């Protein structure tokens, strides 16, 4: 059941991304090209998604103390504005501006079957895995754990 609802909810996400234009790098890049071929459509995507979610989350959190399938809502608790957040987000922005793809736009675009999307996603997955192993390496080397060997 969990798998089925997740599949359907993912499908709604994918259709939303696809018809909104977020899966189209040409359109995404034009939103950011204020000085050139500007296309303001993405403001409508972000606005529509944000307002809908803000209202819906209020209803969900107001009506229920736990989700239907789980014992608690898995919400991020970190509230620190730290260096990884700022530097990572700035890095993401540079990559988004270079490619026109963000993760949420690229995954549904895979379903349209163009080779460019596969190339981008493959590189992005390598980036995620590399960053993950780099992070765990740094944590291993900086933590002072006397009982484990290095």
């Amino acid at each position: 059941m969990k798998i089925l609802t997740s599949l359907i909810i993912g499908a709604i996400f994918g259709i939303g991304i696809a018809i909104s234009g977020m899966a189209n790098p040409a359109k995404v890049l034009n939103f950011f090209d204020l000085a050139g071929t500007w296309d303001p459509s993405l403001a409508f995507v972000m606005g529509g998604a944000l307002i809908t979610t803000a209202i819906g989350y209020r209803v969900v959190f107001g009506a229920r103390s736990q989700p239907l399938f789980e014992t608690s809502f898995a919400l991020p608790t970190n509230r620190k504005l730290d260096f990884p957040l700022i530097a990572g987000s700035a890095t993401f922005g540079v990559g988004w501006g270079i490619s026109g793809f963000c993760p949420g736009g690229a995954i549904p675009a895979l379903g349209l079957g163009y080779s460019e999307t596969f190339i981008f996603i493959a590189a992005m997955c390598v980036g995620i895995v590399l960053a993950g192993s780099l992070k765990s390496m740094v944590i291993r080397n900086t933590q002072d754990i006397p009982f484990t060997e290095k």
Partner: protein
Amino acid sequence: MITEFTPYLSLGGGVLIGISAILLMAFHGRIAGMTGILAGILPPFSSDWAWRAAFIAGAIFAPTIFVMAGGTIPFAVPPSTTLLVIGGLIVGVGVYFGSGCTSGHGVCGMARLSPRSITATIVFMIATFITVYVIRHVIGA
């Protein structure tokens, strides 16, 4: 390359993205952020990979079915293959350390008024505006 301004389709698509985010929270208690969902099915694999894989499968195949049923989704990729590879690597590293992307921070986090997500969204939007400006109007690619 000029793209057509599509306020209604984009707004409608945005509302669907929002509905998806609400349902994932109501049923699964999860943030509909593509970075977090995707990272869980990549090494080191997360133990709850099944719902993540199902969400991603739905997100991929829904547009396929939409097109097969006669729908049209405009698609064009201005950057070269080299830039796609470089951009992909940079996006992957950035969203990992930044703990999210447009869907996780820009939609779900902002909707919760999370200070981290509001900050992240402002930072990546500015970085993207600057990058596109530099590529198109300074370098002139």
